[in-house]
């Protein structure tokens, strides 16, 4: 071999080695982390991942398989679920069903960041609360308690809430009218008292004439049309609203019947209308 040609081949071989992907050989990982062992040659016929259940401490996948002479070359991916040392060969089986005896172990180490025994997945079991009676008995008990409570609220509770002190009775219209009549007849009433007296007189006749269901305007018109009430109302209006009240108006005599008015007088009279 010429020295120049040998140097070129050496350079090409170096470049090829540099460009070739580095196979991963991860033999240790923490719980739950995926790891790979690539380009591992295992003797004999082709191997596949052995079926496992959900309690298996390691999950193994065969990512790729290539023939390697009489043997096979594998890319494996494994995930450790339980801390400790495990043999991946335990999770491989022959594709043709023959035993895997004679194969060298493929150990991996699964580490944990938690202290040993801190967690025990799969061990939690539901614990039924202690119950002396069955569910039906419980339902019946609740229903009985609810019915007793309802009876107590309806009968006993109402009695408790009955007012022990009678509410103050507001003064009747008659009670309010009498002092106003006295004040007006005595010439001591101001404009507000006179106006209130006029409103009370309208309310009085409205009740007496059975005009409660009429509108205010219709009621006043009906009062004015009544012989007794109309005469009174017109005189009161003349005294209160005319620019110069009639000189002949005897207010004391006009209001005399209302000095002794009683609460019953504000009720509708049967002989009217």
């Amino acid at each position, binding site marked *: 071999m010429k020295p120049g040609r040998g140097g070129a081949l050496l350079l090409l071989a170096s470049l090829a080695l540099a460009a070739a992907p580095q196979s991963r050989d991860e033999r240790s990982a923490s719980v739950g982390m995926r790891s790979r062992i690539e380009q591992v040659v295992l003797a004999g016929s082709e191997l596949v991942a052995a079926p496992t259940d959900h309690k298996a401490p390691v999950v193994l996948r065969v990512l790729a398989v290539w023939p390697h002479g009489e043997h096979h070359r594998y890319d494996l991916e494994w995930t450790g679920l339980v801390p400790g040392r495990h043999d991946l060969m335990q999770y491989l089986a022959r594709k043709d069903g023959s035993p895997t005896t004679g194969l060298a172990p493929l150990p991996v180490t699964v580490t944990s960041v938690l202290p040993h025994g801190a967690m025990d997945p799969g061990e939690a079991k539901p614990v039924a609360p202690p119950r002396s009676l069955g569910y039906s008995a419980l339902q019946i008990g609740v229903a009985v308690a609810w019915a007793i409570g309802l009876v107590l609220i309806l009968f006993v509770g109402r009695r408790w809430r009955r007012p022990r002190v009678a509410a103050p009775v507001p003064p009747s219209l008659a009670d309010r009218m009498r002092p106003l009549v006295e004040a007006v007849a005595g010439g001591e009433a101001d404009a507000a008292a006179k106006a*209130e007296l006029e409103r009370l007189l309208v309310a009085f006749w409205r009740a007496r004439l059975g005009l409660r269901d009429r509108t205010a305007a219709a009621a006043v018109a009906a009062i004015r049309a009544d012989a007794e009430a109309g005469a009174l109302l017109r005189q009161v209006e003349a005294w*209160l609203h*005319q620019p110069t009240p009639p000189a002949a108006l005897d207010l004391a005599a006009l209001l005399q019947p209302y000095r002794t008015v009683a609460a019953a007088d504000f009720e509708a009279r049967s002989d009217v209308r």
Partner: protein
Amino acid sequence: MTAVQPSSARFAETREFLHEIRSRVASVVVGQDVVVERVLIALLTSGHLLLQGVPGLAKTLLVAAVSKTVDLAFARIQFTIDLLPSDIVGSEILDQKTHEFRTHKGPIFTNLLLADEINRAAPKVQSALLEAMQERRVTIGNQSYPLPAPFLVIATQNPVEQAGTFELPEAQLDRFMLLHRLEYLTPADEKEVLRRNAALGVRRDGKGAVARTEFDVLGEQASGSADRLVRAMEDVQQVHVSEAFLEHTVEIVNRTRRHPKLELGCSPRAGISLVKASRARALIHGRDYVLPEDLFALAEDVMLHRMRLGYEALAEGCTAPQVLQEILTESPR
């Protein structure tokens, strides 16, 4: 409240004038005595009137009849969604001959303006009109123009067909002294309307002819004049208002403010309007002093549109007229 009393002769003359207007309008418009009275009250107190009623209740005819009877300038605007403020108040237009802007005054420059279906116009247009109603002057360009006196707006709105309308807010409703709700005629009045309409006949016009309408019956002869109206307005100011009447008014207005079913009670403007309208009503009824019956008769038209029911009252099915009657008939405290 004291007032200088008008002489009995002048008072009698005013009574006759008002009676004449009512009779003349009644000869054209049947069965709307209360509305005619409300229009007169608005005229005599320079208040504005909002009429609420379904179409076909002779609102336009009524206003036209009043304006012709009193010999006032009358204009009518049909409010629509595309109406612009300048369509009402006027605008500045470029004169092609002089190349200068000149002012074109809108239909608001009149004595009696009928704003038909005011709730159909956009709020901007409503505001333009209501501003003019309040200030009695309008601004076109940079120039401000006073409106003629007397100036009265009678607006109408339809209580049905609310789609595409803009309800007047409370603040703008408050500008109307009265809101009168028109009712259908009684069967007897409606029969009289039909009888009169059947006797209208035909009006010849050149070689053709058209069927006569109630507007043709109005005629051109005015029975009054603006001068007589002004004197009547002055007489309204002389109507005596007693202290007791003021007490009643304040009490009723205050009851609206503390009533549990009302969310919004009446404004002070309601009290002012009640007294003003009561004075005019007293004069129309031949009195030189107001009585509580004026208050009760006008309360619905003056106060209802200034009150707003609360949520609970609405949920209970209460209506504003019911609550107002409760307030008016409530026994004194």
